[in-house]
């Protein structure tokens, strides 16, 4: 198991390298650059600026300098569009924000989605099952950019219960709406996934065996059915969790939370090469980490996978 984890971690390094090279050239292929504007800069100024950021060097030299700085100094370079700020600064400032509301959003998704799915499965084809399924479909057709304005209308403007935006150091009233707006449609997916998966598990032969042992239904559910039923939910949550903690562009803009989703958009508009690349690396490292965690949870639950590691 430890061996497997190390092997997987080792495989991440070359993958990230390939990814950096790929993104690096892809960005340069896109028309425009960090310093192109409608009114061209005077050539002398342009030359100065390009020199300042090393953009006058051949591409392979730029790439080599970039990689060297990352490996030797963990330095992702200066932002091209925001003066005197480095990519490290921007991530250090924005990532804790998105990590916070992303984490609570994921918590909300699981804490509500799984029990709802379980209840619906246990009350299969009954009133509560239909209520749950209806609710899930209803939530799923409300993407966050529809739900967020509605929530602000209700909770901020009408009832004055929650602040309509800002972050304020991540105090809980400021976290609630971003987390809920971001998570609701995923929560509905998790509920439906849990319901379907648990229904299937409950019809398995070994569940009948567990009942034939005389175990009370609660023990049958918790000890025998829940683990296998949650496997699809776990593999679904891996990428979703990455998406959540790397910041939803919409949530960051709408609630002015100041997370890295905002940086993503700004960087794309201004062709801020360093920021785009830095965020892409952050995104991919998180993705690898989460997928590894999902695989390890799988191995922990399923002995067949464990013995294959």
């Amino acid at each position, binding site marked *: 198991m430890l061996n497997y984890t190390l092997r997987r971690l080792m495989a991440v390094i070359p993958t990230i390298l390939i990814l950096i090279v790929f993104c690096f050239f892809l960005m340069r292929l896109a028309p425009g650059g960090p310093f192109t504007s409608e009114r061209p800069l005077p050539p002398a100024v342009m030359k100065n600026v390009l020199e300042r950021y090393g953009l006058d060097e051949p591409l392979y030299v730029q790439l080599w300098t970039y990689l060297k700085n990352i490996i030797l100094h963990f330095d992702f370079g200066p932002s091209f569009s925001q003066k005197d700020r480095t990519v490290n600064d921007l991530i250090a400032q924005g990532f804790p924000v998105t990590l916070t509301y992303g984490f609570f959003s994921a918590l909300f998704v699981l804490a509500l989605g799984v029990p709802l799915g379980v209840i619906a499965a246990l009350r299969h084809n009954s009133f509560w099952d239909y209520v749950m399924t209806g609710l899930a479909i209803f939530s799923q057709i409300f993407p966050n950019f529809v739900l967020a304005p509605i929530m602000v209308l209700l909770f901020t403007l009408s009832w004055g219960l929650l602040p309509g935006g800002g972050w304020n150091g991540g105090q809980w009233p400021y976290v609630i709406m971003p987390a809920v707006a971001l998570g609701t449609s995923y929560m509905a997916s998790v509920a439906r996934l849990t319901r379907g998966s648990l229904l299937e598990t409950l019809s398995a032969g070994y569940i009948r*065996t567990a009942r034939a*042992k005389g175990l009370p239904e609660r023990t049958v559910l918790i000890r025998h059915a829940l683990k296998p039923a949650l496997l699809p939910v776990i593999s679904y949550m891996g990428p979703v969790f990455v998406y959540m903690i790397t910041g939803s562009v919409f949530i960051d803009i709408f609630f002015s939370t100041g997370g890295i989703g905002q940086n993503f958009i700004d960087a794309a508009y201004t062709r801020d090469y360093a920021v785009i690349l830095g965020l892409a690396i952050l995104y991919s490292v998180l993705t690898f980490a989460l997928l590894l965690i999902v695989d390890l949870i799988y191995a922990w639950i399923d002995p067949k996978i464990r013995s294959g590691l």
Partner: protein
Amino acid sequence: MTLLSVQDLSIRFRTPDGYVHAVNNVSFDIEEGEKLAVVGESGSGKSQIALAILGLLANNAEASGRILYKGQNLLDLPRREMNKIRAKEISIIFQDPMSSLNPYMTVERQLNEILELHEGLRGRAARSRVLEVMEAVQIPDAKNRLKSYPHEFSGGMRQRIVIAMALLCRPKLILADEPTTALDVTVQAQIMHLLEDIQKEYGSSIMLITHDLGVVAGFCNETLVLYGGRVMERAGTAAIFAAPAHPYTRGLMRAVPNIHDPSATLQSIPGQPPNQTRPLVHCPFAGRCGDSLEACFDILPELSPAPHQRACIRAVEELT
């Protein structure tokens, strides 16, 4: 002494297309220490009877009649009371050992949770009992296999584990639902011998559900033949094999390949299994029976009195 008495048991399933009548007014007793074979083709309702005894019928099933055990009707028993009987007094061996063990749990855990529940045994006491039973079902190197998972065992070994599970609490009655059907022929014989030995040692009654007459002949002292969810014949195994008294049983016997004359054509019973979507109004076998009269399509024959019970309006001497 009668251990379990099934009286007028009917089981039907609600489906989108109406009811399916799987078991129709079946009555029989199982005596203490008896080995009863319940024989019938697929769809004859034999597995459903076993599931009904333990209250494990599917949610869309409706059972009526009575299943008396120690003076209580198992069909009316609340789940809490039923749980005290399951595995402790009446245990079941399912057909497919590949699916009846939990793939996510060690074998030891799956066995000792039964002891924990019914006997309050934990830790070392539970382990020694588990080992004792695993050795009784002849799992080699049992001590080192306690922490193994089901997928690390072969099919035959898994079925031994399932049998061990059924034996843990020394139940009064073991329901064996086609315990060897999913296994190789050589392993089948081993498992049947094992069941026989265990039955002798533990003195439990066994209800063996099977479609394999060979298994019945070698193992059971009583035989019950089911067709279309109805009892066709019941008698001592020897009597049934010597003189089958129902056209269906005779058909079954003829369908067994003859070892003394391998060139003989294998006979089958012509026709289709009965339509179970309507309640029975006449003998379910009438449509496929070579000896049927017009009256067979009007009358639902009752079972004749013991010792050799049969449900047929024709006299034994008249049968072909």
